[in-house]
């Protein structure tokens, strides 16, 4: 069975109980192809890495050099914790733990390579290839020469090892710059794009399983998110609100700080309940949520709304219902989970760590007054007509809801 990177990392650390890695080389896939905008994406990634590493023990120096991003630890740091943090930064495709040292001549380098292989690969029964890059052209040997010479040194030191230049088990990268860098392992990152490169959107966050996942998916594409939660006291409790804050906090680990707008929705909801046919309650309620969310979005420079809807999951998530919901907004509504099955969504929520929080049993405002048989194919004409009955009173209630907004900054 193949070792996981965690096992490998532990193996490395087992070497004399000292963490030999002092730096990480950050690989990024998609942002490499962005042409002239490339530096913007790289700067955003560097920024996001810096933000993420604030949560880790230790001091880090994050910098860009010649098309790569390095994270160097200054002094002691917790390897596992740091890797875990970096794995939450969108835009990173791989994290390579790096050993670096001063250039003290080729013989010293050969010694280091032998030591590196010994610590990182206790089992020597492997094929390898040395891949040297000489960024500093005044180094006395050329890349090809370094490859051959280091290969020979390793074969002499570990006769069980063999060279395979096409599909090696171990790709031993040696980079000669001001210092010498050695790395061979790539820990997979989350992929995606650095948050902030894709504009900003307003996430409708409930206490459920889906909306945090939707937020995660949108943020993964580089979009910064604000969130809005509709609170309906006394029908929903302070604990339900706390649950949403907790969820936002988990999503913020990936998406960066989230401005959570809490809107008191009770009066709007009760007015709909009193005035409109009961089976249309949910759909009309959702239309008002969208209207409110759009107003907030426009005030906060968001370019779209994001929901956790997926087709057919509940009555208000049929194509017909979503069409009726869409017509109240000018801004596009993004639904990243639209084609997901529930189980797929649950899988992601478990992976990102929101599931346990999402399943705490607090009532949210959507379920409180729900009809037994809500409409699944709402007729937009009827819906509009019934909404008209809400009258000017509704405009006032909406205005009041927006005015009494509570802003929570979740980090």
């Amino acid at each position, binding site marked *: 069975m193949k070792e996981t990177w965690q096992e490998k990392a532990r193996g490395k650390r087992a070497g004399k109980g000292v963490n030999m890695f002092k730096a990480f080389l950050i690989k990024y896939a998609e942002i490499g192809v962005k042409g002239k905008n490339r530096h913007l994406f790289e700067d955003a990634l560097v920024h996001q890495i810096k933000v993420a590493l604030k949560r880790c023990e230790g001091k880090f120096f994050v910098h860009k050099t010649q098309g790569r991003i390095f994270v160097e630890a200054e002094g002691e740091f917790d390897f596992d914790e740091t890797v875990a943090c970096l794995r939450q930064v969108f835009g990173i495709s791989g994290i390579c733990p790096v050993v670096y040292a001063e250039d003290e001549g080729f013989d010293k380098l050969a010694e280091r390579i032998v030591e590196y292989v010994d610590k990182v690969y206790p089992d020597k029964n492997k094929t390898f290839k040395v891949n040297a890059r000489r960024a500093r052209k005044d180094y006395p040997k050329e890349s090809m020469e370094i490859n051959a010479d280091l290969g020979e040194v390793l074969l002499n030191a570990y006769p069980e090892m063999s060279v395979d230049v096409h599909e090696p088990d171990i790709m031993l990268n040696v980079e000669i710059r001001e210092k010498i860098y050695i790395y061979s392992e790539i820990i997979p990152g989350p992929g995606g794009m650095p948050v902030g490169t894709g504009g900003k959107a307003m996430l409708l966050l409930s206490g459920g399983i889906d909306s945090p996942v939707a937020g995660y998916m949108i943020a993964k594409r580089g979009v910064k998110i604000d969130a809005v939660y509709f609170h309906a*006291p*006394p*029908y*929903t*409790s*302070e604990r339900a609100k706390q649950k949403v804050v907790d969820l936002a906090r988990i999503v913020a680990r990936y998406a960066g700080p989230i401005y959570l707008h809490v809107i008191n929705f009770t009066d709007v909801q*009760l007015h709909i*309940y009193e005035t409109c046919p*009961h089976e249309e309650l949910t759909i009309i309620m959702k239309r008002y949520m969208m209207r409110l969310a759009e107003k907030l979005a426009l005030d906060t420079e968001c370019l779209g709304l994001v929901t956790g809807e997926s087709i057919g999951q509940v009555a208000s998530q049929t194509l017909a219902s979503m069409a009726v919901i869409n017509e109240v907004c000018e801004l596009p509504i993004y639904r990243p989970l639209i084609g997901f099955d529930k189980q797929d969504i649950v899988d992601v929520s478990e992976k990102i760590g929101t599931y346990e929080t999402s399943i705490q*049993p607090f*009532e949210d405002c959507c379920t*409180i*007054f*729900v*009809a*037994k048989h809500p409409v699944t194919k709402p007729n937009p004409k009827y819906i509009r007509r019934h909404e008209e009955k809400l009258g000017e009173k509704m405009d006032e209630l909406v205005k009041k809801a927006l005015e009494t907004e509570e802003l929570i900054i979740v980090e």
Partner: protein
Amino acid sequence: MEVYLDNSATTQVFPEVAAYMTQIMCQQYGNPSSLHLKGMEAEQILRGAKETLAKILKVNEKELLFTSGGTESDNLALRGVASAYQRRGRHLITTQIEHPAILQTMHYLEEQGFQVTYLPVDAYGRIHLEDLQRSMRQDTILVSIMHTNNEVGAQQPIAEAGALIKRMNPNTLFHVDAVQGFGKAKIYPKKMNVDLLSVSGHKIHGPKGVGLLYVDEKVRVRPILFGGGQQGNLRSGTENVPGIAGMAMAAKKLYENYDEDVRKLEECKSFFIDGIQQMDGTRVNGLLPGNPHGEGTAPHVVSVSFKGVRSEVLLHALEERGIFVSAGSACSARKPQPSATLKAMGISQELLGSTIRFSFSVFTNQQELEYTLSVLREIVPMLRMYTRKR
């Protein structure tokens, strides 16, 4: 106005108690097992606390064990006795309306091969002695009955049950969970044929994280915690000196003022129940004060069902106006399931989810209750308008 009517969940610590505990934590912070002076200081505080509590219960100081709270006391009593006497018999008796600390421990003992009989209760939440009598067997090693129910305040006939148990089988031990009753009723284990009794600190204006278990000196208990052998090897672990001292001081304060406090609580309860009964669509669960059955109801708990109102919504609506109450009991409110006590009392399905518990303390006054009643009169009809349409 802040009105705290959830005193069965926990109580406000008496300020003197908090001050005394702070003093102990900062000054007499020694370990009572230490041989030096600091240790002795702490030991003396422990002794004083024991003396106080022993006096209140009219028991011997040696018969008191300090625990981490009601749950541990209940666990130690049940598991400790079951394990020490299992060769004598494997039958246990309890009631259907016990606190989860008892019920869940009983379920655990069932898994260990013990048989448990759960006594039913009547519409007032009281057991019937005939049921107890019928359930007693030669191999019944322990009966555990709660003194005061946490959800409706029903008080069980402890002295009568104790006498009955000993008459039927002198070998059967009797445990009483007095977590809700202690401080609100006079409880004397020796006179009531009670062999083990659980008490908690934070229900009597003392601190959380401390409790008491009385164990009659003739009773053997096998410990459930192992370690340094403190408290006669029955409950290892360094004693929670400030907690124990705080609990003892709170108990002392309550019983010094007992007659007056209980009379005040009873007045509050009558006043509140009168107000509730004037409202439409309400039902007070359990025995009413001054009922023909005599005693049988705690002076500090009122359980009310509000027809057509979801208890959780009412709870939050009251909270918005500074009034803090419980839906069912606090320990089960996290899991939204109908209360076992109310179910056992035969409350209809419709009312199960519409029941609120108001519980008073010595800090409660009529002005607060007037305010609560006026808020209820205002919001209950409003909430009824917006219940889920069918």
